[in-house]
Protein backbone atom coordinates (compact mmCIF):
# COMPACT_ATOMS: atom_id res chain seq x y z
CA UNK A 1 0.00 0.00 0.00
CA UNK A 2 1.14 3.56 -0.71
CA UNK A 3 2.32 5.84 2.07
CA UNK A 4 -0.07 8.54 0.93
CA UNK A 5 -2.96 8.35 -1.51
CA UNK A 6 -4.55 11.59 -2.66
CA UNK A 7 -7.96 11.47 -4.32
CA UNK A 8 -9.72 14.30 -6.18
CA UNK A 9 -8.14 16.89 -3.92
CA UNK A 10 -9.15 20.55 -4.18
CA UNK A 11 -6.97 23.16 -2.49
CA UNK A 12 -7.55 26.78 -1.62
CA UNK A 13 -8.93 29.24 0.89
CA UNK A 14 -12.65 29.75 1.49
CA UNK A 15 -14.25 30.16 -1.89
CA UNK A 16 -10.98 30.62 -3.71
CA UNK A 17 -9.89 27.41 -5.41
CA UNK A 18 -6.20 27.24 -6.25
CA UNK A 19 -6.07 23.72 -7.62
CA UNK A 20 -8.56 20.94 -8.15
CA UNK A 21 -8.76 17.34 -9.22
CA UNK A 22 -5.38 16.27 -7.86
CA UNK A 23 -4.85 12.51 -7.82
CA UNK A 24 -1.54 11.01 -6.81
CA UNK A 25 0.08 8.42 -4.65
CA UNK A 26 3.33 8.58 -2.75
CA UNK A 27 5.28 5.39 -2.27
CA UNK A 28 7.99 4.62 0.21
CA UNK A 29 11.35 5.89 -1.08
CA UNK A 30 9.92 8.39 -3.58
CA UNK A 31 11.55 11.76 -4.20
CA UNK A 32 8.88 14.22 -5.31
CA UNK A 33 9.49 17.83 -6.27
CA UNK A 34 6.61 20.28 -6.13
CA UNK A 35 7.09 23.08 -8.64
CA UNK A 36 4.93 25.87 -10.00
CA UNK A 37 4.58 29.61 -10.07
CA UNK A 38 4.19 31.78 -6.99
CA UNK A 39 0.64 31.55 -5.69
CA UNK A 40 -0.05 28.33 -7.56
CA UNK A 41 -0.73 26.49 -4.31
CA UNK A 42 2.56 24.76 -3.51
CA UNK A 43 2.61 25.79 0.14
CA UNK A 44 -1.13 25.25 0.42
CA UNK A 45 -0.61 21.71 -0.84
CA UNK A 46 2.02 21.06 1.82
CA UNK A 47 -0.11 22.59 4.56
CA UNK A 48 -3.09 20.51 3.54
CA UNK A 49 -0.94 17.40 3.40
CA UNK A 50 0.25 18.07 6.96
CA UNK A 51 -3.25 18.77 8.23
CA UNK A 52 -2.50 22.43 9.01
CA UNK A 53 -5.31 23.33 6.66
CA UNK A 54 -8.46 21.50 5.57
CA UNK A 55 -8.87 20.39 1.94
CA UNK A 56 -11.79 22.02 0.10
CA UNK A 57 -12.69 18.69 -1.40
CA UNK A 58 -11.25 15.21 -1.76
CA UNK A 59 -9.25 12.97 0.52
CA UNK A 60 -5.72 12.40 1.74
CA UNK A 61 -5.31 8.84 2.94
CA UNK A 62 -2.26 7.82 4.95
CA UNK A 63 -1.37 4.16 4.62
CA UNK A 64 1.32 1.64 5.48
CA UNK A 65 1.16 2.52 9.17
CA UNK A 66 2.01 6.18 8.54
CA UNK A 67 0.04 8.77 10.47
CA UNK A 68 -0.48 12.36 9.41
CA UNK A 69 1.54 13.56 12.40
CA UNK A 70 4.33 11.10 11.65
CA UNK A 71 5.98 13.50 9.23
CA UNK A 72 9.30 15.34 9.35
CA UNK A 73 8.50 18.88 8.31
CA UNK A 74 11.01 21.55 7.36
CA UNK A 75 9.07 24.81 7.17
CA UNK A 76 10.45 28.00 5.73
CA UNK A 77 12.41 29.92 8.34
CA UNK A 78 10.66 32.81 10.01
CA UNK A 79 12.25 36.09 11.06
CA UNK A 80 11.72 35.15 14.71
CA UNK A 81 13.75 31.97 14.36
CA UNK A 82 16.84 33.60 12.89
CA UNK A 83 17.46 35.40 16.16
CA UNK A 84 16.08 32.84 18.57
CA UNK A 85 18.06 32.27 21.77
CA UNK A 86 18.27 28.49 21.86
CA UNK A 87 20.98 25.91 21.48
CA UNK A 88 21.06 23.49 18.56
CA UNK A 89 20.33 20.64 20.96
CA UNK A 90 17.21 22.32 22.37
CA UNK A 91 15.82 22.89 18.90
CA UNK A 92 16.53 19.40 17.59
CA UNK A 93 15.03 17.93 20.77
CA UNK A 94 11.78 19.78 20.06
CA UNK A 95 11.43 17.51 17.02
CA UNK A 96 10.55 14.69 19.42
CA UNK A 97 7.54 16.54 20.88
CA UNK A 98 4.97 14.76 18.69
CA UNK A 99 5.95 11.34 19.98
CA UNK A 100 5.70 12.44 23.61
CA UNK A 101 2.01 13.30 23.39
CA UNK A 102 1.00 14.91 26.66
CA UNK A 103 4.03 13.71 28.59
CA UNK A 104 5.85 16.85 29.68
CA UNK A 105 9.53 15.89 29.72
CA UNK A 106 11.99 14.29 27.32
CA UNK A 107 13.81 11.13 28.35
CA UNK A 108 17.02 9.37 27.43
CA UNK A 109 15.41 7.80 24.37
CA UNK A 110 14.72 11.22 22.85
CA UNK A 111 18.21 12.41 23.70
CA UNK A 112 19.66 9.42 21.87
CA UNK A 113 17.52 10.19 18.82
CA UNK A 114 18.85 13.75 18.91
CA UNK A 115 22.49 12.65 19.04
CA UNK A 116 21.91 10.21 16.20
CA UNK A 117 20.39 12.84 13.95
CA UNK A 118 22.97 15.47 14.84
CA UNK A 119 25.58 12.97 13.72
CA UNK A 120 23.60 12.18 10.59
CA UNK A 121 23.49 15.87 9.66
CA UNK A 122 27.16 16.24 10.57
CA UNK A 123 26.47 18.96 13.17
CA UNK A 124 27.34 17.14 16.40
CA UNK A 125 30.06 19.70 17.10
CA UNK A 126 27.42 22.46 17.19
CA UNK A 127 25.17 20.72 19.74
CA UNK A 128 25.77 23.26 22.52
CA UNK A 129 26.19 26.23 20.20
CA UNK A 130 23.66 28.97 19.78
CA UNK A 131 21.33 28.57 16.83
CA UNK A 132 21.35 32.27 15.98
CA UNK A 133 25.11 32.30 15.56
CA UNK A 134 25.14 29.61 12.86
CA UNK A 135 25.26 30.24 9.13
CA UNK A 136 22.13 29.83 7.00
CA UNK A 137 23.22 26.42 5.74
CA UNK A 138 24.02 25.20 9.24
CA UNK A 139 20.66 26.44 10.51
CA UNK A 140 18.88 24.49 7.78
CA UNK A 141 20.77 21.36 8.78
CA UNK A 142 19.64 21.87 12.38
CA UNK A 143 16.02 22.12 11.24
CA UNK A 144 16.49 19.05 9.07
CA UNK A 145 17.83 17.14 12.07
CA UNK A 146 14.75 18.26 14.00
CA UNK A 147 12.52 17.03 11.17
CA UNK A 148 14.28 13.66 11.26
CA UNK A 149 13.58 13.39 14.99
CA UNK A 150 9.90 13.69 14.20
CA UNK A 151 10.00 11.07 11.45
CA UNK A 152 12.61 9.24 9.48
CA UNK A 153 10.07 7.87 7.02
CA UNK A 154 8.70 10.96 5.31
CA UNK A 155 10.29 14.40 4.99
CA UNK A 156 8.28 17.35 3.77
CA UNK A 157 10.54 20.25 2.84
CA UNK A 158 9.35 23.75 2.01
CA UNK A 159 12.07 25.40 -0.09
CA UNK A 160 14.99 24.02 1.90
CA UNK A 161 17.57 26.11 0.04
CA UNK A 162 15.77 29.47 0.18
CA UNK A 163 18.31 32.14 1.04
CA UNK A 164 21.34 29.84 0.89
CA UNK A 165 24.42 30.54 -1.20
CA UNK A 166 25.15 28.17 -4.13
CA UNK A 167 27.65 26.07 -2.21
CA UNK A 168 25.33 25.64 0.80
CA UNK A 169 22.43 24.86 -1.55
CA UNK A 170 24.45 22.17 -3.27
CA UNK A 171 25.40 20.65 0.11
CA UNK A 172 21.76 20.72 1.18
CA UNK A 173 20.62 18.92 -1.98
CA UNK A 174 23.33 16.31 -1.57
CA UNK A 175 22.31 15.75 2.03
CA UNK A 176 18.64 15.35 1.10
CA UNK A 177 19.58 12.98 -1.70
CA UNK A 178 21.65 10.83 0.68
CA UNK A 179 18.70 10.63 3.07
CA UNK A 180 16.51 9.58 0.15
CA UNK A 181 19.06 6.90 -0.75
CA UNK A 182 18.75 5.60 2.82
CA UNK A 183 15.05 5.09 2.16
CA UNK A 184 13.53 8.35 3.45
CA UNK A 185 10.62 9.51 1.32
CA UNK A 186 11.02 13.15 0.28
CA UNK A 187 8.42 15.69 -0.80
CA UNK A 188 10.04 19.03 -1.53
CA UNK A 189 8.90 22.40 -2.79
CA UNK A 190 11.51 23.98 -4.99
CA UNK A 191 11.87 27.09 -7.08
CA UNK A 192 15.04 25.64 -8.47
CA UNK A 193 13.88 23.72 -11.54
CA UNK A 194 17.29 22.44 -12.51
CA UNK A 195 17.79 20.90 -9.07
CA UNK A 196 14.27 19.48 -9.13
CA UNK A 197 14.94 17.81 -12.45
CA UNK A 198 18.33 16.56 -11.30
CA UNK A 199 17.32 14.91 -8.03
CA UNK A 200 13.61 14.16 -8.10
CA UNK A 201 11.97 10.96 -9.31
CA UNK A 202 8.54 12.54 -9.68
CA UNK A 203 7.33 16.05 -10.43
CA UNK A 204 4.15 17.62 -9.11
CA UNK A 205 3.45 20.74 -11.14
CA UNK A 206 0.96 22.86 -9.20
CA UNK A 207 -1.51 24.91 -11.19
CA UNK A 208 -5.28 25.00 -11.50
CA UNK A 209 -5.27 21.45 -12.85
CA UNK A 210 -2.17 19.98 -11.21
CA UNK A 211 0.00 17.50 -13.05
CA UNK A 212 1.79 14.60 -11.38
CA UNK A 213 4.14 12.38 -13.35
CA UNK A 214 7.56 10.82 -13.33
CA UNK A 215 10.45 13.11 -14.12
CA UNK A 216 11.02 11.42 -17.49
CA UNK A 217 7.41 11.81 -18.59
CA UNK A 218 7.38 15.38 -17.35
CA UNK A 219 10.45 16.40 -19.34
CA UNK A 220 8.85 15.00 -22.49
CA UNK A 221 5.46 16.54 -21.81
CA UNK A 222 4.01 19.69 -23.40
CA UNK A 223 3.54 21.33 -19.99
CA UNK A 224 7.21 21.29 -19.21
CA UNK A 225 8.03 22.73 -22.64
CA UNK A 226 5.79 25.73 -21.94
CA UNK A 227 6.96 26.08 -18.32
CA UNK A 228 10.64 25.52 -18.90
CA UNK A 229 10.75 27.37 -22.22
Amino acid sequence: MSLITIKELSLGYGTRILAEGLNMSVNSGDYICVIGENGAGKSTFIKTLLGLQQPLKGKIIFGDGLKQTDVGYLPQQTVVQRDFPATVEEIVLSGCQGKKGLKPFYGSKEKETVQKNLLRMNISEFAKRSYRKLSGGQQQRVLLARALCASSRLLVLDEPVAGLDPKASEDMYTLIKSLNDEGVTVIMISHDISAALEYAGHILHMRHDPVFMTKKDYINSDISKIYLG
Partner: protein
Amino acid sequence: MYLDYPFVRYAIIVGMLIALCSSLLGVTLVLKRFSFIGDGLSHVAFGAMAVASVMNLTNQMVLVLPVTIACAIIILRMGQSTKIRGDAMIAMVSVGALAIGYLIMNVFSTSSNLSGDVCTTLFGSTSILTLTINEVLLSAALSVGVVAVFVIFYNKIFAVTFDENFARAVGTRAGGYNLLIAIVIAVIIVLAMNLVGSLLISALVVFPALSAMRLFNSFKGVTIFAAIISVVCALVGILFSIAVGTPVGSTIVITDIAAFVICFMIGLAGRRG
Protein backbone atom coordinates in the same frame (compact mmCIF):
# COMPACT_ATOMS: atom_id res chain seq x y z
CA MET B 1 14.73 46.83 60.94
CA TYR B 2 12.18 47.41 58.22
CA LEU B 3 11.62 43.67 58.12
CA ASP B 4 10.05 43.86 61.58
CA TYR B 5 6.92 45.28 60.00
CA PRO B 6 4.62 42.60 58.60
CA PHE B 7 3.54 44.81 55.68
CA VAL B 8 7.17 45.06 54.55
CA ARG B 9 7.55 41.28 54.71
CA TYR B 10 4.31 40.80 52.78
CA ALA B 11 5.42 43.29 50.14
CA ILE B 12 8.76 41.56 49.68
CA ILE B 13 7.27 38.07 49.50
CA VAL B 14 4.53 39.02 47.06
CA GLY B 15 6.83 41.29 45.06
CA MET B 16 9.38 38.56 44.52
CA LEU B 17 6.73 35.97 43.61
CA ILE B 18 5.16 38.33 41.08
CA ALA B 19 8.56 39.18 39.61
CA LEU B 20 9.35 35.49 39.23
CA CYS B 21 6.07 34.72 37.45
CA SER B 22 6.13 37.71 35.16
CA SER B 23 9.64 36.97 33.96
CA LEU B 24 8.95 33.33 33.03
CA LEU B 25 6.67 34.02 30.10
CA GLY B 26 8.53 37.18 29.10
CA VAL B 27 10.84 35.27 26.80
CA THR B 28 7.91 33.68 25.00
CA LEU B 29 6.04 36.95 24.70
CA VAL B 30 9.03 38.82 23.33
CA LEU B 31 9.87 36.09 20.84
CA LYS B 32 6.32 35.51 19.69
CA ARG B 33 5.98 39.27 19.17
CA PHE B 34 3.27 39.22 21.84
CA SER B 35 4.83 41.94 24.02
CA PHE B 36 1.88 44.21 23.55
CA ILE B 37 -0.62 41.61 24.67
CA GLY B 38 0.66 42.20 28.16
CA ASP B 39 0.25 45.91 27.72
CA GLY B 40 -3.22 45.58 26.25
CA LEU B 41 -4.38 43.23 28.96
CA SER B 42 -3.12 45.50 31.70
CA HIS B 43 -5.43 48.23 30.41
CA VAL B 44 -8.27 45.75 30.41
CA ALA B 45 -7.43 44.92 34.00
CA PHE B 46 -7.52 48.65 34.78
CA GLY B 47 -11.01 48.90 33.31
CA ALA B 48 -12.18 45.88 35.28
CA MET B 49 -10.61 47.27 38.44
CA ALA B 50 -12.50 50.52 37.95
CA VAL B 51 -15.78 48.67 37.61
CA ALA B 52 -14.96 46.55 40.66
CA SER B 53 -14.17 49.56 42.83
CA VAL B 54 -17.35 51.33 41.75
CA MET B 55 -19.33 48.21 42.61
CA ASN B 56 -17.62 48.30 46.02
CA LEU B 57 -16.45 44.72 45.76
CA THR B 58 -14.37 43.74 48.76
CA ASN B 59 -12.33 41.28 46.74
CA GLN B 60 -11.71 42.94 43.38
CA MET B 61 -9.90 39.91 41.96
CA VAL B 62 -13.21 38.07 41.69
CA LEU B 63 -14.15 40.41 38.86
CA VAL B 64 -10.78 41.49 37.48
CA LEU B 65 -9.31 38.04 36.93
CA PRO B 66 -12.12 36.50 34.84
CA VAL B 67 -12.55 39.68 32.76
CA THR B 68 -8.84 39.83 31.99
CA ILE B 69 -8.70 36.13 31.10
CA ALA B 70 -11.72 36.54 28.82
CA CYS B 71 -10.07 39.46 27.04
CA ALA B 72 -6.82 37.50 26.67
CA ILE B 73 -8.76 34.78 24.90
CA ILE B 74 -10.59 37.30 22.71
CA ILE B 75 -7.38 39.08 21.70
CA LEU B 76 -5.70 35.80 20.87
CA ARG B 77 -8.61 34.32 18.93
CA MET B 78 -9.43 37.48 17.02
CA GLY B 79 -5.77 38.22 16.38
CA GLN B 80 -5.49 34.98 14.46
CA SER B 81 -8.26 35.84 12.05
CA THR B 82 -6.83 37.99 9.33
CA LYS B 83 -9.69 40.50 9.25
CA ILE B 84 -8.32 42.56 12.14
CA ARG B 85 -4.61 42.21 12.69
CA GLY B 86 -3.38 41.17 16.12
CA ASP B 87 -1.76 44.48 17.04
CA ALA B 88 -4.74 46.52 15.91
CA MET B 89 -6.99 44.22 17.93
CA ILE B 90 -4.90 44.76 21.04
CA ALA B 91 -4.94 48.52 20.52
CA MET B 92 -8.73 48.49 20.21
CA VAL B 93 -9.35 46.38 23.30
CA SER B 94 -6.78 48.12 25.49
CA VAL B 95 -7.61 51.74 24.67
CA GLY B 96 -11.30 50.92 24.86
CA ALA B 97 -10.93 49.41 28.30
CA LEU B 98 -8.85 52.34 29.49
CA ALA B 99 -11.48 54.83 28.35
CA ILE B 100 -14.37 52.87 29.83
CA GLY B 101 -12.50 52.37 33.10
CA TYR B 102 -11.69 56.04 33.53
CA LEU B 103 -15.20 57.12 32.55
CA ILE B 104 -16.77 54.74 35.05
CA MET B 105 -14.46 55.86 37.82
CA ASN B 106 -15.24 59.48 37.03
CA VAL B 107 -18.99 59.18 36.78
CA PHE B 108 -19.82 56.70 39.50
CA SER B 109 -17.02 57.06 41.99
CA THR B 110 -17.97 58.17 45.49
CA SER B 111 -14.37 58.68 46.47
CA SER B 112 -13.22 62.16 47.34
CA ASN B 113 -9.78 61.59 45.87
CA LEU B 114 -10.52 60.49 42.32
CA SER B 115 -7.21 61.33 40.68
CA GLY B 116 -5.45 59.60 43.56
CA ASP B 117 -7.49 56.43 42.92
CA VAL B 118 -6.76 56.50 39.22
CA CYS B 119 -3.09 57.09 39.83
CA THR B 120 -2.92 54.20 42.28
CA THR B 121 -4.52 51.83 39.81
CA LEU B 122 -2.28 52.95 36.98
CA PHE B 123 1.02 53.15 38.83
CA GLY B 124 0.33 50.89 41.78
CA SER B 125 1.77 53.47 44.14
CA THR B 126 1.06 52.00 47.55
CA SER B 127 -1.13 48.94 47.20
CA ILE B 128 1.81 46.57 47.57
CA LEU B 129 2.40 47.99 51.04
CA THR B 130 -1.19 47.57 52.19
CA LEU B 131 -1.65 43.86 51.47
CA THR B 132 -3.65 41.74 53.88
CA ILE B 133 -2.60 38.22 54.78
CA ASN B 134 -5.38 36.83 52.59
CA GLU B 135 -4.12 38.73 49.57
CA VAL B 136 -0.64 37.44 50.25
CA LEU B 137 -1.92 33.86 50.36
CA LEU B 138 -3.92 34.32 47.18
CA SER B 139 -0.92 35.81 45.37
CA ALA B 140 1.26 32.96 46.60
CA ALA B 141 -1.23 30.34 45.41
CA LEU B 142 -1.56 31.93 41.97
CA SER B 143 2.22 32.23 41.69
CA VAL B 144 2.72 28.58 42.54
CA GLY B 145 0.12 27.74 39.89
CA VAL B 146 1.86 29.84 37.25
CA VAL B 147 5.27 28.34 37.99
CA ALA B 148 3.85 24.80 37.99
CA VAL B 149 2.11 25.30 34.65
CA PHE B 150 5.28 26.78 33.19
CA VAL B 151 7.49 23.90 34.37
CA ILE B 152 5.07 21.18 33.26
CA PHE B 153 4.56 22.70 29.82
CA TYR B 154 8.08 24.07 29.41
CA ASN B 155 8.94 21.86 26.44
CA LYS B 156 5.63 22.49 24.71
CA ILE B 157 5.90 26.23 25.28
CA PHE B 158 9.39 26.15 23.78
CA ALA B 159 8.15 24.19 20.77
CA VAL B 160 5.19 26.48 20.14
CA THR B 161 7.33 29.59 20.61
CA PHE B 162 10.07 28.47 18.27
CA ASP B 163 7.97 27.07 15.46
CA GLU B 164 4.21 26.91 15.64
CA ASN B 165 3.75 25.36 12.20
CA PHE B 166 6.17 22.55 12.91
CA ALA B 167 4.54 21.91 16.28
CA ARG B 168 1.13 21.69 14.63
CA ALA B 169 2.41 19.39 11.91
CA VAL B 170 3.69 16.84 14.42
CA GLY B 171 0.39 16.89 16.26
CA THR B 172 0.97 19.40 19.07
CA ARG B 173 -2.18 21.35 19.76
CA ALA B 174 -0.57 24.73 19.28
CA GLY B 175 -3.88 26.59 19.56
CA GLY B 176 -4.46 25.08 22.99
CA TYR B 177 -1.01 26.05 24.21
CA ASN B 178 -1.38 29.59 22.88
CA LEU B 179 -4.59 29.78 24.88
CA LEU B 180 -2.79 28.48 27.95
CA ILE B 181 -0.07 31.09 27.50
CA ALA B 182 -2.69 33.85 27.19
CA ILE B 183 -4.50 32.71 30.33
CA VAL B 184 -1.28 32.55 32.33
CA ILE B 185 -0.39 36.05 31.13
CA ALA B 186 -3.77 37.30 32.28
CA VAL B 187 -3.22 35.80 35.74
CA ILE B 188 0.25 37.33 35.94
CA ILE B 189 -1.05 40.75 34.97
CA VAL B 190 -3.78 40.75 37.56
CA LEU B 191 -1.20 39.70 40.15
CA ALA B 192 1.28 42.30 39.04
CA MET B 193 -1.22 45.14 39.21
CA ASN B 194 -0.70 45.11 42.96
CA LEU B 195 3.00 45.54 42.56
CA VAL B 196 3.57 48.04 39.81
CA GLY B 197 0.12 49.16 38.67
CA SER B 198 -1.41 48.48 35.30
CA LEU B 199 0.66 50.87 33.19
CA LEU B 200 4.00 49.44 34.22
CA ILE B 201 3.31 45.70 34.00
CA SER B 202 4.75 45.26 30.54
CA ALA B 203 8.10 46.45 31.82
CA LEU B 204 8.09 43.68 34.40
CA VAL B 205 7.36 41.11 31.69
CA VAL B 206 9.63 42.37 28.95
CA PHE B 207 12.78 43.82 30.54
CA PRO B 208 14.13 40.72 32.33
CA ALA B 209 13.64 38.64 29.17
CA LEU B 210 15.39 41.20 26.98
CA SER B 211 18.23 41.51 29.49
CA ALA B 212 18.76 37.76 29.63
CA MET B 213 18.65 37.48 25.83
CA ARG B 214 21.67 39.81 25.63
CA LEU B 215 23.77 37.39 27.65
CA PHE B 216 22.55 33.84 27.16
CA ASN B 217 22.29 31.61 24.12
CA SER B 218 20.14 28.74 25.32
CA PHE B 219 16.42 29.01 25.96
CA LYS B 220 16.87 27.43 29.36
CA GLY B 221 19.67 29.84 30.26
CA VAL B 222 17.65 32.85 29.15
CA THR B 223 14.59 31.70 31.10
CA ILE B 224 16.46 31.01 34.33
CA PHE B 225 18.52 34.19 34.18
CA ALA B 226 15.45 36.29 33.39
CA ALA B 227 13.78 34.90 36.50
CA ILE B 228 16.84 35.69 38.64
CA ILE B 229 17.21 39.25 37.30
CA SER B 230 13.53 39.89 37.80
CA VAL B 231 13.44 38.68 41.40
CA VAL B 232 16.63 40.54 42.33
CA CYS B 233 15.39 43.77 40.72
CA ALA B 234 12.06 43.50 42.53
CA LEU B 235 13.81 42.98 45.86
CA VAL B 236 16.23 45.85 45.32
CA GLY B 237 13.43 48.08 44.05
CA ILE B 238 11.13 47.41 47.02
CA LEU B 239 13.87 47.90 49.63
CA PHE B 240 15.08 51.06 47.95
CA SER B 241 11.62 52.55 47.68
CA ILE B 242 10.84 51.82 51.33
CA ALA B 243 14.12 53.30 52.49
CA VAL B 244 14.01 56.39 50.31
CA GLY B 245 10.26 56.79 49.98
CA THR B 246 9.97 56.57 46.20
CA PRO B 247 6.93 54.90 44.56
CA VAL B 248 7.40 51.12 44.59
CA GLY B 249 6.26 50.32 41.04
CA SER B 250 8.37 52.81 39.18
CA THR B 251 11.39 52.12 41.36
CA ILE B 252 11.24 48.42 40.45
CA VAL B 253 10.85 49.23 36.77
CA ILE B 254 13.81 51.61 36.87
CA THR B 255 15.88 48.89 38.54
CA ASP B 256 14.88 46.57 35.69
CA ILE B 257 15.93 49.20 33.15
CA ALA B 258 19.28 49.61 34.88
CA ALA B 259 19.78 45.83 34.78
CA PHE B 260 18.95 45.85 31.08
CA VAL B 261 21.50 48.58 30.36
CA ILE B 262 24.16 46.62 32.26
CA CYS B 263 23.34 43.40 30.38
CA PHE B 264 23.32 45.27 27.10
CA MET B 265 26.81 46.64 27.78
CA ILE B 266 28.15 43.24 28.83
CA GLY B 267 26.58 41.73 25.72
CA LEU B 268 28.27 44.30 23.49
CA ALA B 269 31.61 43.80 25.16
CA GLY B 270 31.25 40.03 24.88
CA ARG B 271 30.52 40.23 21.18
CA ARG B 272 33.52 42.42 20.53
CA GLY B 273 35.89 40.34 22.66
